[in-house]
């Protein structure tokens, strides 16, 4: 199947580096792409996949390294330039205008007509040509929005493909497709591949990776972990590469965890779930216990924490907190019953950027008290001051707008808000996302400290070592389903990876 390796590479990216203020997004990454291959690019959120792709397609400029196209060094300053060299991208969200006809959507973009005047007769003909490349036979005068997502996805690909397109980047093209639609898309990908196109395929569905790709590259924290022939790497090794190994020191400091057994049941979920979000699951949290949530990107980690908190409304099962029925509770009720939640996406769901650190910390506590009983200003300042000291939030004063803080400090403010509401149960979704290693260890230590004080914690994380270091028990998720739990002494990387990979891992 793979005679491509002897060909000359179409794209060679060498020692690519890219930094954003405060973050090293990519360092020293090599990436090669041969004609006629499907190359899967894997990694968790923030691993650097989209940065690498944006550099390839000219949307971002690199800080270091070189890109060669058919052996010649190139420098793209815009996506237009990359497109002119035959590199096209289809993004996850379909970038089409739903109310416009297929023809009009396919005509958008750099005009090749004289004086920018569009001849609709020609445009229709060109649209049909583009679609016929994908063997897609639809009425080009219908609005794009009237077709299924799969067809829209194909139209987007048709839009990206030109006569001279030689490299096609597909960013999570199957995220919103069902099995049948995915099969259709894969047939087309195989066809394009047979015609010598080089295809970059980004996804988090491992089954699809093995089904369609020839080679696999794994990124983690901005580094290339490895590039493999798909036929030569097992599913377990692949998962192991995606989920890192970085927390050695923390692991050591926390070796003494779980001196005492777990306390009484704090939270019991039975058959809790929601269609298309997460299959019904059972979950129990005890006082003085940390339960880790492990699974790959898109496996349902975030969804589980949100279902428990009520940020996503469940449509099946029940939830009891301290013996009280909390099924179908709103975030507000959950908070009142002593659950606090720190969301993964700080900017969108965590912080109110224009408000001060003090106001952000007070928000949940004040919401619990109600609007009439405002906490006196002096007490607000006292609590904010205590939190700033206890969590080590680096700021000159509590009145600074929270958007001016660094990522790690913002994360601590979200945590401070949850703690200020004095919860018995704490749900943390990716508590260490995007923060530096020092703060990383601090937060893990804090999690263990809260647990020893009798709090029940649920910690979702993409960092396997973090889960291993912090948890007394681990719940494992795969493809939007809870597949099992690992307890006490059995908690280690290999056991978790084996469970994430599932039973069919032997095939590869």
């Amino acid at each position, binding site marked *: 199947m793979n005679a491509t390796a002897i060909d000359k590479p179409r794209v060679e990216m060498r020692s690519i580096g890219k930094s954003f203020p405060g973050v090293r997004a990519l360092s020293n990454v090599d990436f090669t792409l041969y004609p006629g291959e499907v190359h899967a690019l894997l990694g968790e959120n923030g691993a650097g996949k989209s940065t690498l792709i944006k550099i390839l397609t000219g949307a971002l400029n690199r800080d270091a390294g070189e890109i060669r196209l058919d052996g010649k060094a190139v420098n793209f300053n815009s996506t237009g330039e990359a497109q002119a060299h035959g590199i096209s991208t289809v993004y996850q969200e379909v970038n089409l205008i739903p109310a416009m006809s297929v023809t009009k959507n396919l005509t958008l973009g750099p005009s090749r007509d004289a004086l920018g005047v569009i001849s609709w007769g020609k445009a229709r003909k060109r649209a049909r040509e583009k679609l016929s490349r994908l063997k897609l036979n639809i009425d080009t005068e219908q609005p794009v929005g009237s077709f299924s997502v799969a067809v829209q996805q194909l139209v987007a690909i048709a839009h990206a493909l030109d006569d001279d397109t030689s490299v096609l980047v597909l960013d999570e093209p199957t995220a919103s497709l069902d099995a049948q639609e995915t099969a259709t898309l894969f047939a087309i990908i195989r066809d394009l591949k047979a015609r010598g196109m080089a295809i970059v395929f980004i996804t988090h569905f491992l089954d699809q990776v093995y089904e369609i790709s020839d080679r696999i590259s794994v990124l983690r924290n901005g580094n290339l972990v490895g590039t493999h022939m798909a036929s030569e790497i097992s599913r377990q090794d692949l998962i192991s590469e995606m989920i890192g190994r970085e927390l050695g020191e923390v692991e050591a400091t926390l070796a003494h965890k779980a001196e005492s057994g777990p306390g009484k049941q704090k939270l019991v979920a039975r058959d809790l779930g929601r269609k298309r979000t997460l299959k019904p699951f059972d979950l129990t949290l005890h006082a003085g216990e940390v339960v880790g949530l492990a699974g790959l990107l898109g496996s349902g980690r975030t969804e589980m924490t949100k279902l428990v*908190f009520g*940020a996503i409304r469940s449509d099946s099962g029940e939830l009891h907190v301290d013996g009280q029925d909390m099924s179908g509770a709103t*975030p*507000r009720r959950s*908070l*009142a019953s002593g659950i606090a*939640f720190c*969301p993964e996406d700080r900017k*969108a*769901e*965590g*912080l*109110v*950027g*224009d*408000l001060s650190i003090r*106001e952000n910390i*007070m*928000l*949940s506590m*004040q*919401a*619990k*008290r*109600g*609007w*009439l*009983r*405002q*906490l006196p200003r002096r007490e607000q300042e006292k609590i904010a001051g205590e939190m700033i000291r206890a969590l080590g939030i680096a700021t000159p004063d509590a009145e600074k707008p929270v958007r001016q803080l660094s990522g790690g400090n913002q994360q601590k403010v979200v945590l401070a*808000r949850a703690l200020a*509401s004095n919860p018995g149960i704490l749900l943390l979704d990716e508590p260490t996302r995007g923060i530096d290693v020092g703060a990383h260890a601090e937060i893990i230590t804090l999690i263990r400290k809260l647990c020893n004080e009798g709090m029940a914690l649920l910690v979702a994380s993409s960092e396997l070592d973090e889960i291993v270091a912090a948890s007394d028990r681990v719940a494992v998720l795969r493809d939007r389903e809870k597949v099992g739990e690992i307890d006490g002494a059995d908690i280690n990387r290999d056991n978790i990876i084996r469970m994430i990979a599932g039973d069919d891992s032997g095939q590869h």
Partner: protein
Amino acid sequence: MTVASTDSRTDRPVPVWLKAIVQSRAVWPVLALVLILIVAGSVSPNFFEIRIVEGRLFGNLIDILYRAVPTALVALGMAVVIGTRGIDLSVGSIIAIVGAVIVWRIKMGDPHITILFSALAAGILCGMWNGFLVSALRIQPIIATLILMVAGRGIGMLINQLYGGTDPSFESALLQWMSTGSIWLIPTRLILAAGIFLALWLLIRRTALGLFIESVGGNAAASNLAGVKAGLIIFVAYVLSGLLSAWAGVIMTADTHTSDPVSVALYIELDAILAVVIGGGSLAGGRIYLGMTVIGALVIQALTTATLISGLPPEYNLIIKALVVLSVLFLQSANARKAIGSLVSRRAS
């Protein structure tokens, strides 16, 4: 002279208070107000004169305060709604409805104190309608309040029909005292407006309502997850705007002794929005500046009064207003403030 200025540049550091003032939000609107008054004073020599006529203070400064009251009240409600990242276009129509309700109930012979409460209740009801559309039906605020903006004046005319609508003029000692009367030399409506401002300020700043409104306006999703009832908060904001518009309606209706739904308070929503924006509020929501909103309303009224007194033809009024608003907004913009701020500190070093 040039030598002296060079000296000051190298030797004297700019005091901290000057830097604070230059970078403060309040400086440009207040400066604009002072400048307008100075210009008006230089054009018309008696501008600052204040006399006592018939047991009440008179003069241009009093007149500016007096005339700014309805706009200021409406603008305060608008500031609260804008704080939630919303907008209320229906305020003028609410005033029209309130006026019609007042005349209708007077013709029906209600006690005038009851009529005052009926009028305020009408405003609250209008606010509840807007709040329902925005928070429960999730209609975009500009569209949701446009509905009442369009329908409101028609509703006012229908209410006038309830008593025949032939003679909408009325007399009411109570309401007219509240609008045009005075207590110890001071116009009643100024005292009334100050009381309403204080009550609103206490409600916003001495309860957690202000924090909740600002957090919902700043990030509704995060506020919800933090336990704030975003929908209820938004609803309350529109009710407050309806109530404050009703107060403005009472004062305006009593002032003219009549109900004129077609033309009363026409375009007041635009002045109210302008007042909020001049006061430093952003239509992106997330912050409420009550005091500065009042300054904003005063800037608008001072401009109008000053142009009229200066003897310029009235058509210049609107153009001058536009220019002043433009320059205040420009000076308030983050970029301009940064530029001016760095200019000041460069002089300091």
